[in-house]
């Protein structure tokens, strides 16, 4: 059965496309026809016709930072429920962090995920651990990763503390063009910390996480990369690609801004909760567990710097750091709460509400942050709205107002600080692998 999307706003930043138009997709999932302007595509009998007047047809959203907890912690999330969360949020693909139990630090782990994700409605990219068991002591087998199609490495949840090991990781990853995704955290500075070290932590008596713990790590890594580029590699082999996960402070954004200006292959992502919330939201919350994550919610000054980084292009991607936890792991005093919140279902709504509606960025730039750029960073094929190309699409209603409710979640967990919040803009469905899934 062919599918006809009529009267849509076709929005694809990768092709500089933003126009009224229609699209016909064959039953093989390949694009047959794209028309722009008012030019109609005639429907044949048996075609599925979807009128998208007032709606946006965008390239499939991609979240480059998710935790689906399988294997090992299936009570929090599974590959299947995580995928359901992604579909609910309008994502056609996500990248999975390797901090499962056991850690994905070998081709065996990669194969396990691939085997158990076959047949799921979205694409799952596997990120390999940067070091064995993510202990920061010995490099993981990057060469084997690469031969299994892995595109990125990360010890997310922690960071290599030993500078010599980090240096080796940077040098070795460059051999395979693997993206180094850094969870930037000086663990000595953050040990035992619960929330941002500042005015709110002082009042609540909660152990603080000093915000310098993030830029200190980024500065170290950028020094290593700049040194390697100049004094060791010197153009002889590919430059390392370095990506800061869930960036959260003004100082970190400034470091990335300067590194980009200096010509280093550096990028970064921000989460919707970090550009939306601050330490004061934690302070005001009755149920504080869902406001506890790493990096911690920062001061308003830092939040504003993240918004500025989104505006001026320093920040490349929006990623959720979707981190499911069971109820009993959050329903407890704040210093006992597990770190992290879910985010797939609310990511697009928060992006439109907090950034597009407030005039920080255009909807086109939002799509770039949620699809084009994360796909490029992860080494995935560019989605094009062209005849013969595979249709990989997200249908967006940018004007729909909705209140976040239990029923909106596909995830097995509900650890979100946004329950009950009214948002503008949402995904109506996805078209991927020849299948239309409407919410």
């Amino acid at each position, binding site marked *: 059965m062919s599918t006809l999307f009529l009267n849509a706003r076709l929005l694809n930043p990768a092709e500089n496309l933003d126009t009224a138009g229609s699209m016909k997709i064959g039953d093989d999932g390949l694009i047959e026809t794209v028309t722009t302007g008012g030019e109609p595509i005639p429907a044949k009998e048996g075609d599925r016709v979807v009128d998208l007047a007032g709606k946006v047809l965008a390239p499939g959203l991609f979240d480059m930072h998710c935790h689906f907890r399988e294997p090992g912690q299936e009570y929090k999330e599974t590959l299947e429920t995580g995928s359901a969360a992604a579909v609910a949020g309008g994502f056609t693909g996500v990248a999975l962090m390797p901090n499962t139990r056991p850690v994905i630090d070998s081709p065996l782990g990669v194969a396990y995920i691939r085997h158990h994700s076959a047949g799921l409605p979205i694409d799952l990219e596997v990120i390999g651990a940067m070091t064995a068991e993510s202990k920061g002591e010995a490099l993981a087998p990057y060469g084997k990763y690469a031969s299994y199609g892995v595109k990125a490495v990360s010890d997310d949840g922690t960071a290599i503390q030993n500078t010599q090991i980090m240096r080796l990781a940077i040098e070795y990853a460059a051999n395979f063009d693997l993206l180094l995704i850094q969870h930037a955290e000086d663990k000595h500075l953050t040990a035992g910390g*619960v929330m941002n*070290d*500042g*005015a709110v*932590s*002082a*009042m*609540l*008596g*909660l*152990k*603080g996480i*000093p915000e310098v713990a993030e830029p200190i790590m980024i500065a170290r890594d950028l020094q290593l990369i700049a040194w390697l580029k100049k004094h060791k590699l010197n153009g002889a082999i590919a430059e390392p690609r370095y990506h800061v996960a869930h960036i959260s402070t003004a100082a970190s954004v400034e470091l990335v801004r300067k590194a980009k200006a200096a010509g280093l292959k550096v990028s970064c992502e921000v989460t919707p909760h970090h550009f939306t919330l601050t330490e004061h939201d934690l302070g005001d919350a*009755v*149920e*504080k567990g869902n406001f506890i994550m790493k990096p911690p919610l920062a001061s308003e000054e830092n939040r504003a710097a993240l918004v500025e980084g989104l505006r001026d292009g320093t920040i490349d991607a929006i990623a959720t750091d979707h981190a499911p936890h069971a109820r*009993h792991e959050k*329903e*407890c*005093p*704040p*210093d*006992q709460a597990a770190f992290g919140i879910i985010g797939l279902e609310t990511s697009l709504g928060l992006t439109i509400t907090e950034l597009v509606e407030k005039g920080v960025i255009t909807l086109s730039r939002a799509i770039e942050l949620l699809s084009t750029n994360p796909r490029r960073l992860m080494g995935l094929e560019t989605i094009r709205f062209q005849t013969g190309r595979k249709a990989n699409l997200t249908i967006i209603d940018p004007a729909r107002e909705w209140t976040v409710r239990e029923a909106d979640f596909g995830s097995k967990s509900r650890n979100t600080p946004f329950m009950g919040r009214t948002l503008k803009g949402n995904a109506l469905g996805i078209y991927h692998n020849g299948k239309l899934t409407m919410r």
Partner: protein
Amino acid sequence: MNHLTGLYGLPADTLHDLLDLAAGYRAGLNREPEIFAPVLANRRVALVFFENSTRTRFSFELAARHLGASTLSFTAASSSVSKGETLSDTIRNLEAMKVDAFVLRHPSSGAADFVASITDRPVVNAGDGTHEHPTQALLDILTLREYFGRIEGLKIMILGDILHSRVARSNIIGLKTLGAEIAVCAPTTLLPGRIDQLGVQVFTGIDEALAWADAAIVLRLQLERATGGFIPSLEEYSARYGLTDEKLDRLKRLLPVLHPGPINREIEISNLVADRIQPPGYSSSMLMEQVTNGVAVRMAVLHRLLAR
């Protein structure tokens, strides 16, 4: 007031009311025999203590019993917590047994507010992590009020580990609400971030701090702070910040001295200062007065939260 999880946010009227009621009970504790109206008859108060405590637990237990309530005690080491039960499950089970109030001590900051969020029974915070210890502050404030006859305009100096002290937080909040000025005196490593936002003066030298103060609240120095690197050694801390006659002699003015206990003798406070009630000497130890006031304050708190 449905709970007393902290002094943060409580208006001056509420504090004055609790202090007035406590002052009445304090007078009653001096009478022989001590007989109080059983305003809490047939009420059951659960003393849920996840940390060791002698003074505070006995104080609450006596306070409850003076008013006719029955008490049940719970200590974490001998409970199902050691079998991995969550705090919310523990509380819900006790609630199902129909206890009427919880007095909670817990090592986690925010534990009392958390428990208050999951139960409709009154919750009294008997110390949660490094957050608040409101009844300790109330008894300190009652002690100061009895000594000076007022709180407004007093200059109170808190000496020691402010960063890790729930007593300091509650005292700063409560005393400021009642119009006192507060200064803290500690090495920078034992001060919390953004101390300026607490609206207190900061002294890093003890002589200037003593010269400023009308009264001093000396905090217990947790002995593990030295191994944690916050101070180089107990000896160095004691030499710089320990309250001794040598330092008070430079002041040449009688200074009332409070301490929440338990004290580390000759670390944060000398034997002479801790034990001297009357001159000669420049200190007046309020420590035992504080302990008695503690019973009266807890009677007032339980009365207000639980009396029908």
